């Protein structure tokens, strides 16, 4: 069997005495798109945040490319360069232009040459349809545009895995589509992604595998998303999916 790109073993997370994640095991293969769904408070966002060290974990291990994640500064920085993340709130740096937002990390963290990186940034901006906004400041952009820039800012680091944490949850409905289209294209081009979302149609279309999380545990896992969304195996997942129907 192919060696997993990202492996999680018995991940355990507590916060102020409450257990948030209980002994989670997961192997993510290269090129795989995993969608994580579940009721709010089930720990799905926390799970993503543990993977790039934004949250401390109280037990278990995380391996990227067979190397264990350590919490020391040097290791965590190199891990974060390999595991990109996009957040729910558009988190661009407000004092920098679109292009500066994108170039900051590759230039100061990865010490890449500005000129080459800028060419790559422009190519990526072209792909998300925002090349003409390169000199705008975030406040001049719509939510959907900001979120597409945030995706480009993560992509330019050449991450091996991309974590998307409810990236359309704060968007107006008409902007959701333009952002999800970008993510669909990434999936087509073979990006490895872990996606937390409430967009069930999107989840069904993009997922190679679906995880249903509840009370900090993987309550159901399916490698056949079509079947899962038609007819989940567990009663809890059925109930959850039903809550999206009108």
């Amino acid at each position, binding site marked *: 069997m192919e060696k997993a790109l990202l492996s999680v073993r018995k991940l355990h997370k507590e916060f102020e005495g409450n257990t948030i994640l209980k002994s989670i095991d997961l192997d993510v293969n290269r090129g795989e798109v995993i969608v994580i769904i579940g009721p709010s408070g089930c720990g799905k966002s926390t799970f993503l945040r543990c993977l790039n060290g934004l949250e401390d974990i109280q037990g278990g291990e995380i391996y990227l490319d067979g190397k264990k994640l350590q919490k020391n500064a040097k290791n965590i*920085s190199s891990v*974060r360069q390999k595991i990109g993340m996009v957040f729910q709130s558009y988190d661009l740096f407000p004092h920098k232009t679109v292009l500066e937002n994108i170039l900051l990390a590759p230039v*100061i963290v990865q010490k890449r040459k500005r000129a080459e990186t800028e060419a790559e940034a422009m190519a990526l901006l072209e792909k998300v349809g925002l090349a003409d906004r390169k000199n705008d400041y975030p406040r001049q952009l719509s939510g959907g545009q900001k979120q597409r820039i945030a995706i480009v800012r993560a992509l330019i680091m050449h991450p091996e895995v991309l974590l998307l944490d409810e990236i359309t949850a704060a968007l107006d409905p008409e902007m959701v589509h333009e952002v999800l289209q970008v993510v669909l294209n990434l999936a087509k081009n073979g990006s490895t992604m872990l996606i937390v979302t409430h967009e069930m149609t999107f989840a069904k279309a993009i997922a190679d595998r679906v995880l249903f999380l509840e009370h900090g545990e993987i309550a159901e896992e399916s490698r056949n998303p079509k079947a899962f969304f038609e007819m989940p195996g567990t009663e809890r997942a059925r109930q959850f999916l039903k809550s999206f129907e009108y």
Partner: protein
Amino acid sequence: MQSLGIDVLFKGTNFLRLLSGLWVAVRISLISVSISILVGLIVGVLMTSENRILKAVFRIYLEIVRIMPQMVLLFIVYFGTTRVFGWNLDAEIAAIFVFSFWGIAEMGDLVRGALISISKIQYESAMALGMNGKQVYYYVILPQTIRRLIPLSINLITRMIKTTSLVMMIGIVEVLKVAQQIIEANRRSSPNAAFGIFAVVFLLYFLICWPISRLSVSLEKRWS
């Protein structure tokens, strides 16, 4: 129309005397403002601390500064300490102490406000890009803090400069005191000098504060 009393300005060295009085006011302001900014930055960072005792101490400090008129503080420090502690403070030192005591508290509070107004997600998104702690502060947090801080601190600076006119009350011969002396000395020959000379003092304060507040406006525009 009555004479405006401007002529007194050009008698003898009057204008030069006014300017040297202005320099005293500017000197006290400059030193106090510099101390306030430097120490205020540190105090501001400490004010965001979770430590309860530290928080309470700064809270009380800030309230004292806000409630007590600067003149009362000046009197306590200059006159009060002489008898109680036997300190023979130089008036200018006392003034700088009071103005710094005031400035540090207000500057600290501005820094605290600017720091906590930056959302946690700014730190996290910078860290998620692999930046280390120093890089996060230097490239992401500080530029945003300073942008929020500059218009507010310039307002504080101009207020401090204007308020230095109080130091004549503890015997410092600054621009307003010099103006009074000139007016008194020319009471007979130019009884209207009060208008002309005080108008010139007004103009001098204006010339100092106006460029500073213009700077703030233009920075605000550029960064808004």
